[in-house]
């Protein structure tokens, strides 16, 4: 069946923008699917045809990303952010309310195709939750009044473009500035410094500063850049990982909206250092509202001669937008996604520095790392390394969320203790802090003097606070479901293991758990840690491991006293047969048993 004129026009325009290449598949699919639309079988076939890729591959990609849909969705597609902080802010009641007002059921299209309401993983508005996306556009600070307003707009079928702008207002709250956020960049200033140095000298400066990757792993940036520069290849690439998907993290949102010049400047420096003239910035789909601003920054820099093939440092940046997948924050999954495929992590080695984007030597760094690199050039390596600890130089942006009266971004020198951050955030009564999101570490009161640093508590930036009334078991359960949802499905230990973990904590939640389940959890965590293909699986057991260690009573008080109990009521499992046969004799029932 041929495409209708409108869809065909969108496809043609996407092909003009991205080119008819197989590695553009994801961006073409993104462009062809309108915010409220879906990718029908005809569209998938037309895309496969235009890009000369097998239909199976197109379907594989379309079905992998949660923001691409191969089934019809409502004209208004509502996705509630389902991070633990959204739940703590009351998102469940608001979702119920919206569903009631719209006569909708979560996960289904309602009102003759008018609306679909569902949940999605953390959208990065934890400082102003609960949050949602409507047709891909972010709305924060949800409350009953706003939900009522949104339901009225939907029922009146007002297009989202004409909704009041204040609904979409995202505020960046900076509570503490240090070296990085105090830096006022004159665009091009860091490049001017860099051009006085040879690429090798530039890498030397970065090495002297001790800069390490800010995404959480802390790999020394200079080593990465030097390895990429030394790798043979006709072209090299610089990739900025702006797929900030770790629940509880939102510091890149601030940098992307307020400090875009610093990011691009850092990428350009990296390009100069390794001899790359192409940069790619991969923005998570949840941050679509930042795209126009970023494009403007890029355009402005091109105009100012700071970016582009003819700039003093010939280097340009292309903006890619993701499509809703946590695992794409892993650098090799991100490269796969940039190449238009499913976001399945690659085997390492070879590492991206030798075989990265399209198999070429590639530097993949976090948004904050590029900013810090530019800062090193501006402030000098010595000033930079004066902040921080022996092995963690400089400062770190923390996304403080959860039970704090002062949520927002805090920039602290590395080495700051958890207690100091809690004091600054007015949250001294916290019982637990999740440092680095679900894949990080959950610590309790006894460890609040530990330091944020690569040598003690590394973090990509999430700092989620749980106050005295919180049930830590529910926190771990929410994270278990998060990993089960986000597992890419490639390797069995992770695909099955994350689901089993979620199922076992659900069993404990339902009151059917026993000591047997606690042992089961330990065993599953060990298998995930050893058997999984990538970091997602390796860390998927962390929230349960940490909370079993520190908050055992939260589990114990839910356990049944037996050695083992089924996850369901056995007598209730006979109810359908009792109803159909009309029997109610003793043999038609099952007791608790032995």
């Amino acid at each position, binding site marked *: 069946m041929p495409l209708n004129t409108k869809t065909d026009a969108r496809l043609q325009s996407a092909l003009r923008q991205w080119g008819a290449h197989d590695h553009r598949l994801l961006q073409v699919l993104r462009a062809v699917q309108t915010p409220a639309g879906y990718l029908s079988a005809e569209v998938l076939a037309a895309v496969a045809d235009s890009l000369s890729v097998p239909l199976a591959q197109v379907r594989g990609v379309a079905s992998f990303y949660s923001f691409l849909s191969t089934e019809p969705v409502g004209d208004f597609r509502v996705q509630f952010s389902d991070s633990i902080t959204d739940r703590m802010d009351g998102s469940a009641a608001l979702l119920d309310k919206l569903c009631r007002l719209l006569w909708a059921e979560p996960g289904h299209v309602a009102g003759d195709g008018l609306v679909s309401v569902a949940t999605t993983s953390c959208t990065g508005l934890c400082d102003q939750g609960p949050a949602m996306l409507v047709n891909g556009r972010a709305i924060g600070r949800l409350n009953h009044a706003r939900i009522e307003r949104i339901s009225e707009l939907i029922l009146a079928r007002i297009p989202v473009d004409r909704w009041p702008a204040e609904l979409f207002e995202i505020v960046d709250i900076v509570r503490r500035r240090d070296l990085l956020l105090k830096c006022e960049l004159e665009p091009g200033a860091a490049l001017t410094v860099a051009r006085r140095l040879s690429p090798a000298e530039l890498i030397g400066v970065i090495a002297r500063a001790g800069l390490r990757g800010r995404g959480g792993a802390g790999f020394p940036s200079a080593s990465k850049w030097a390895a990429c520069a030394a790798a043979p290849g006709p072209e090299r690439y610089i990739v900025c990982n702006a797929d900030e998907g770790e629940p509880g993290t939102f510091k890149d949102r601030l940098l992307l909206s307020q400090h875009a010049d610093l990011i691009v400047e850092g990428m350009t420096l990296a390009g100069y250092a390794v001899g790359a003239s192409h940069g790619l910035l991969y923005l998570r789909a949840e941050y679509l509202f930042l795209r126009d601003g970023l494009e403007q920054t890029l355009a402005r820099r091109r105009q100012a001669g700071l970016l582009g093939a003819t700039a003093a440092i010939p280097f340009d940046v292309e903006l890619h937008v993701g499509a809703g997948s946590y695992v794409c924050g892993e650098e090799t999954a991100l490269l796969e996604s940039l190449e238009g495929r499913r976001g399945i992590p690659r085997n390492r080695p070879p590492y991206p520095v030798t075989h990265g984007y399209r198999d070429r030597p590639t530097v993949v760094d976090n948004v904050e790392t590029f900013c810090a690199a530019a800062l090193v050039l501006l402030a000098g390596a010595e000033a930079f390394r004066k902040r921080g600890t022996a092995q963690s130089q400089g400062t770190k942006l923390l996304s403080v969320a959860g039970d704090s009266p002062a949520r927002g971004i805090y920039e602290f020198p590395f080495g700051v203790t958890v207690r100091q951050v809690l004091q600054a955030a007015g949250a001294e009564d916290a019982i637990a802090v999740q440092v680095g999101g679900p894949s990080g570490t959950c610590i309790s009161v006894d460890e609040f003097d530990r330091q944020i640093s690569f040598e003690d508590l590394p973090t990509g930036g999430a700092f989620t606070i749980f106050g005295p009334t919180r049930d830590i078991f529910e926190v771990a359960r929410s994270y278990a479901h998060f990993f089960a949802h986000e597992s890419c499905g490639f390797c069995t230990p992770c695909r099955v293991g994350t689901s089993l973990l979620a199922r076992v904590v659900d069993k404990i939640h339902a009151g059917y758990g026993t000591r*047997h389940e606690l042992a089961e959890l330990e065993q599953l965590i060990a298998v995930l840690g050893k058997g999984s293909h990538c970091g997602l699986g390796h860390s998927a057991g962390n929230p349960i491991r940490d909370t079993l260690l520190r908050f055992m009573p939260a589990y114990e008080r839910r356990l049944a006293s037996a*050695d*083992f109990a*089924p*996850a369901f009521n*056995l007598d209730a*499992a*006979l*109810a*359908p*047969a*009792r*109803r*159909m*046969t*009309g*029997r109610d*004799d003793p*043999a*038609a*029932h*099952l007791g608790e*048993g*032995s």
Partner: protein
Amino acid sequence: MSEPNPPRVRLATTSLAGCFGCHMSFLDIDEKLFPLLERVEFDRSPLTDIKNCGPCDVGLIEGGVCNAENVHVLREFRANCKVLIALGACAITGGLPAQRNHLDLGLCLQEVYLTEPSLARGGIPNDPELPLPLDKVYPLHEIVHIDYFIPGCPPSAEAIWKVLSDLLAGHTPYLAEPLIRYD
């Protein structure tokens, strides 16, 4: 003076919602039955026709749990056996009988006994002698704690022998890949 014979290991076996294929595979250990019988004595088993399980060292169960009687038998085994082993695909996953799990039991009974012409005049059997079917077919480990699993449909005689001989020798049972490879 010779060493006194070690006490025999007491072994019980049963089939719940299974086809006895696993038991057939068990018998396929052939001549190894003789050394086995020197070391074990059978309690409840289709081989002995003992109706109820007494205190045992090892219980082998094939088949999933599809009705109330299966639950009672499984509980009896769990209460009496020190080590309980799920034998074969149905015991481990529900297997073939679990293909009914995506159907609604009520609608199933209705279609078979009320609306289809063949049995329509019989009505849904409600004799208290008959065990009531559960809403779904469950694997053993969702009802009681299971110590070991022997996969396969059926597991090979070698796999069954390996697990039993490991247990008799006091090893933790281990099935290397060739014994759990099916292609």
